[in-house]
């Protein structure tokens, strides 16, 4: 059954969910001028990777990547799925920890971190326990509830924009390619694409429509970084940890009864993130169920306890940043190898099929 709508919604929600936090800071600190260049590079890579991935998947109709890899043999699974699983778990840890920290900075300044993290992990486990089908369905509901709010907030953040900060536009400086923050910015590009390979048995989708939705999300990648830049200018925006959140904070809407828009914005994005993390956890469980039968039926509990413990062990923001970088390296590996290997496997199986029929 074609359920592109669910997959597209999931894609849009998950990408909107994490592009407004660390990503603007990464882009802004990756270069001094012409920020559209690193963003454009990121977007093109993103588009190419998703295209490759879906092209590869299209050779295996009705199969998810676990089935594809396990058919290809143990080495392939270990080489590609192993890092992917590790990456998913690492990503969940970093996101839970970082996002809880942001919440304490922004509004829950008295609440201890472990409590916020426990609530988040609890919600995530609940979502994951319901399985992939339920996750994709609830995506539609969450989109209906929160997407309008996010969009209103997003457009209101243009209030203090000074378009002249767009300049200088041209740049000959490509040193961003050597900077760490540029690779960390792939957090927003490479965080969510893996799930396309897990949707298959329950939710088949047309890859063309997914690609169109990718194109629709690309302007947001630009604006998430450019709204703070246009409000503050690079010299100031570079001093901020969460440029977009601060920009949101400086929006003054007279007729609105709420003084701080940021809270609504953050909570809406939090809903997207929780859903996405639930999906990631479910993916991790799918992988571990297939390859680690050792745990029997306690995969969910085991993985969540590990995640919670690791989250608790991270004492300070510097460690989060270090983890962020390790994950970024792992991500680039997953980002490049998984789609390409799927495409190659697809081409091989197609070749076999032709040979067989000949």
């Amino acid at each position, binding site marked *: 059954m074609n359920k592109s709508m669910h997959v597209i919604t999931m894609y849009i929600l998950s990408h909107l969910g994490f592009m407004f936090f660390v990503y603007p800071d990464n882009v802004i600190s990756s270069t001094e*001028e012409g920020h559209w260049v690193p963003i454009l590079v990121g977007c093109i890579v993103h588009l190419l990777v998703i295209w490759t991935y879906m092209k590869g998947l299209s050779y295996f109709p009705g199969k998810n990547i676990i089935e594809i890899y396990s058919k290809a043999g143990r080495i392939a699974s270990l080489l590609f799925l192993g890092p992917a699983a590790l990456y998913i778990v690492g990503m969940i840890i970093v996101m839970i920890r970082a996002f809880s920290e942001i919440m304490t900075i922004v509004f829950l300044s008295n609440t201890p971190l472990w409590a916020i993290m426990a609530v988040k992990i609890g919600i995530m486990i609940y979502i994951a326990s319901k399985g992939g089908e339920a996750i994709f369905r609830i995506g539609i509901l969450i989109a209906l509830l929160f997407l309008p709010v996010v969009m209103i907030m997003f457009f209101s953040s243009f209030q203090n924009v000074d378009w002249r900060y767009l300049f200088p*536009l041209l740049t000959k400086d490509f040193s961003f390619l050597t900077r760490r923050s540029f690779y960390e910015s792939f957090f927003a590009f490479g965080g969510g694409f893996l799930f396309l390979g897990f949707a298959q048995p329950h939710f088949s989708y047309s890859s063309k429509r997914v690609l169109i939705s990718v194109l629709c999300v690309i302007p947001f990648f630009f604006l998430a970084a450019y709204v703070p830049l246009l409000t*503050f*200018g690079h010299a*100031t925006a570079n001093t901020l940890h969460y440029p977009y959140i601060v920009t949101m904070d*400086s*929006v*003054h809407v007279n007729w609105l009864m709420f003084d701080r828009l940021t809270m609504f914005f953050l909570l809406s994005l939090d809903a997207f993130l929780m859903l996405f993390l639930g999906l990631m956890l479910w993916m991790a469980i799918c992988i571990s169920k297939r390859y680690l039968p050792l745990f029997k039926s306690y995969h969910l509990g085991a993985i969540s306890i590990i995640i919670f413990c690791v989250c608790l062990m991270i004492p300070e923001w510097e460690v989060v940043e270090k983890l962020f970088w390790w994950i970024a390296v792992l991500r680039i590996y997953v980002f490049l190898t998984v789609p390409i290997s799927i495409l190659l496997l697809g081409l091989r199986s197609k070749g076999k099929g032709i040979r067989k029929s000949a």
Partner: protein
Amino acid sequence: MLKKAASLILISLFAGMLSGCWDNRDINHRALPVTMGVSMKGDNYNVLLLIPEPVENTTRIRLVKGEGKTVTEAIDTISRDMESFVDMLHMKVVVFDKALAERGLMDSISGFMRARDISPKVIVVITDDEINQFFKRSQKTMAPEGTTLYDCFEKDAGWNPEIALTRVWEVYRSIHSYTRDVAIPIIQAGTKTMIEHNGSAIIKNGRMVGRISSEETLLMNAFSGESSYGKVEVMNHASVLIVSNTFRNSSKVVDRTPYMNSKIILKVSLLETRENTNADLIREELEKVLTLRCDAVIEKMKANEADVLGLGQFFRNKLPRNELQHWRTEYLPRLKMNFEVRTIIQNEGNLKMPS
């Protein structure tokens, strides 16, 4: 059945989480200051808070003081001494002492931005008076809600185009930005009204370097696109009401000298005239008055190397970034600015123009 009961209990337990509170202080145990005054005494910050407190049928305004090495320490001292917890959530206006502004607001403003308990939208004001004096006097003339000072700067209340309107985040931007400075309104406690406006302070990189008059502030507001509607311009032969203004700017750089041409299109309506006045004379006079004033502002900007009009913004597409870095020191003093005023007399009121 057992499973159902267990899940029901579990769900009802979730209700406890709904409050989202942790170590929460109820609203009656919080003091919510609306105005804060900051000055410096030696190496210590002196912080004053105006806290409206409900008593019986009205509100009483309470003035509390604290001292500390940093602004937060001072607030903390106040919080310690008071019976309730000081919550800066509803803070609206920060008043800085002039001496502190001249010394530099960088640390306090960066502190506000960092800690986030004071919103970046808070309005920044400088006072000419001694800060204790200012607060004591204004406390007397203040309406019981305690928000009078804020209302003076609220756009849909007492704000006027002659008053600069600058928020914490804008001052923060000026600390780091290459091409943008801000002006902060200067006030003092008044005798009949609560405050009196004394023009604005020119803030360069977070430090007060000079001041401009109210008329010059109007020009600055008009230039940055705030409406100057309602301002009455008085000249020798007539007084007019400004209805709208538009600026058309063009800029170029020749030989490291920035040139800028600014055309002001002013729509006015006639209020009062003296005898023997005609439209041409009014136009001519208005043009002269405004050009003189514009030139005066530019001279002040050049002298202080502070870009309150944000002229550097117009050169962002003309100069490379490493040159923009020196905009204030190298380019601004050499700027050749040309103002052109075009006046449109939109209407003459009920009376015909004497011809």
